[in-house]
C-alpha cells in the first residue's frame, strides 16, 4: 500500500450493547467537537539476566487494553445515559448504583441478554464518513471518570473516556488463554 496522509474524516460514534437494553441494535451516540483519541496500552515484563546488567535481553508480553477518549458536541443524551448505566454493570436506573462487585460480562457472549445479569460490555464503533477503516472496540465501558458534562448557556461539550478490555467468556479459552482474544478490529457491528 502506498504512503499517504492519513485522514479519518468526520466520524460518527455508534454503540451496541446488551440485546435486551435500549442499545440492543447499533445506535448513534454522536459526533465529536474534535478528534477522537485512541490509545493502546500493553504490559510487558522484562527478563533480567545478570550477564546483561540491568537491561533486559528478552521481555514477555502481558496483555493489552485500549483507552478511547472523545468530546461529544452533537449527541443523543438518552443513549449516553444508557451507556453510563450499562458501564455500571447492574445499574437499575439513571444515577443509581448496582451491586458492588457486579461483573460486566457475566460469562455471556457479546450482547448476551439477561437484564441485570446480562453482558454489559458495549461495542464502541468509530465510523468514518470518508471510508477510512472502522475502529470497533468489542468490549468497552465508560471508565473511571466516565463523563464530564458542563451545564450552562454554552453548548455542552461532554468528555467521555472509554476502556476496551480483552473479555472472553471463559478465560481458559480451551487452553489458548488470551491468545486470539480480540480487543479491537476493523469490522463495524451491524
Amino acid at each position, binding site marked *: 500500500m502506498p504512503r499517504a496522509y492519513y485522514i479519518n474524516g468526520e466520524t460518527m460514534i455508534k454503540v451496541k450493547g446488551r440485546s435486551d437494553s435500549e442499545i440492543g441494535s447499533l445506535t448513534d451516540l454522536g459526533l465529536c467537537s474534535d478528534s477522537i483519541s485512541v490509545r493502546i496500552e500493553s504490559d510487558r515484563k522484562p*527478563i533480567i539476566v545478570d550477564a546483561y546488567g540491568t537491561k533486559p535481553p*528478552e521481555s*514477555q508480553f502481558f496483555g493489552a487494553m485500549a483507552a478511547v477518549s472523545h468530546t461529544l458536541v452533537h449527541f443523543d443524551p438518552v443513549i449516553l445515559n444508557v451507556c453510563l448505566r450499562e458501564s455500571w454493570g447492574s445499574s437499575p436506573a439513571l444515577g443509581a448504583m448496582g*451491586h*458492588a*462487585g457486579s461483573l460486566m460480562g457475566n460469562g455471556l457472549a457479546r450482547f448476551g441478554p439477561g437484564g441485570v445479569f446480562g453482558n454489559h460490555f458495549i461495542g464502541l464503533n468509530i465510523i468514518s464518513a470518508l471510508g477510512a477503516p472502522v475502529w470497533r472496540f468489542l468490549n468497552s465501558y465508560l471508565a473511571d471518570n466516565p463523563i464530564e458534562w458542563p451545564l450552562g448557556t454554552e453548548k455542552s461539550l461532554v468528555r467521555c473516556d472509554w476502556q476496551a478490555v480483552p473479555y472472553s467468556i471463559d*478465560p*481458559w479459552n*480451551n*487452553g*489458548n*488463554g488470551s491468545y486470539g482474544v480480540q480487543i479491537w478490529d476493523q469490522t463495524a457491528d451491524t
Partner: protein
Amino acid sequence: MTRSYYINGAPMVYVKGNPDTFPPELADNQNGVFQLGLASESIKVTPRFSHFDVLADDYGPEVPAEILWNLADCYIQMTLVHFDYQVLDACIAAAMGGGTYPILMGAGKPLGAGLPLYQSGNNYVTLFLVSGIGSRPWRFPACYLTGRPLEYPLGTEKSLVGLQWRAIPYSPLSDEPGTEGEALSNGSILWDHTLDTGGDNVDDGGSEFDEADFV
C-alpha cells in the same frame, strides 16, 4: 537439550479422586478428571527432601560420615480466581476423610487406608497442572489440602481462594509375594510429568492419554 527461559504458561488445575467424592459421571472427561480452576498468579511447587545424618565417632559430633535418604514430600500453593466451587468442596471433603462436604470424618481415619488410588476408601486427590502452551505437565498422584488448607475471602470483590496442598509418595500396601500387606517406599512417585490417570501410582504406560483430553 538447549538452555532457554522456562515459561510454563497459565496452568489449568485438574483433580481426580475416588468415585464416592468425585462421581465419574460428573467429570469433565472420560478419565474421571475434574477441572478445579485457574490461578490468579503463578502456582508454587516446593518439594521438601528429608535426609538423616549418620554420625560416626571418627567424624566427630557434628559432621556426618554418611547421609540417609528419607523420602520427600511436596507443597503446592495456589490462589484460585476462576474455579468450580463444587469441585473445590469435593477436594475439601476428601481432605477431611472422605465424607460428604462439609462433614468431618472421625479423628484418626487414614486417607489412603492402604488402598490403590481412586478406589472407594482412598481419599487422596491427584493434582494435575496442565499448561495451555504445551509445557510439560505436572502430576502429583497423592495429595490433600493441608495445614490452613484454604483462605476464602467473602465480599463484593472476586474471591481469590488460597489453597495449600501437600503431596506425599503414597503407595498402596504391597501385594507382592513375600511382602504382602507391607508399606514399601521404594519406587513410589511423589510427582512426575505424565498425565497417567491409572490408579496404581506406577508409571507403567497404562491409561495414558494426551493433553488434548484436558483442554
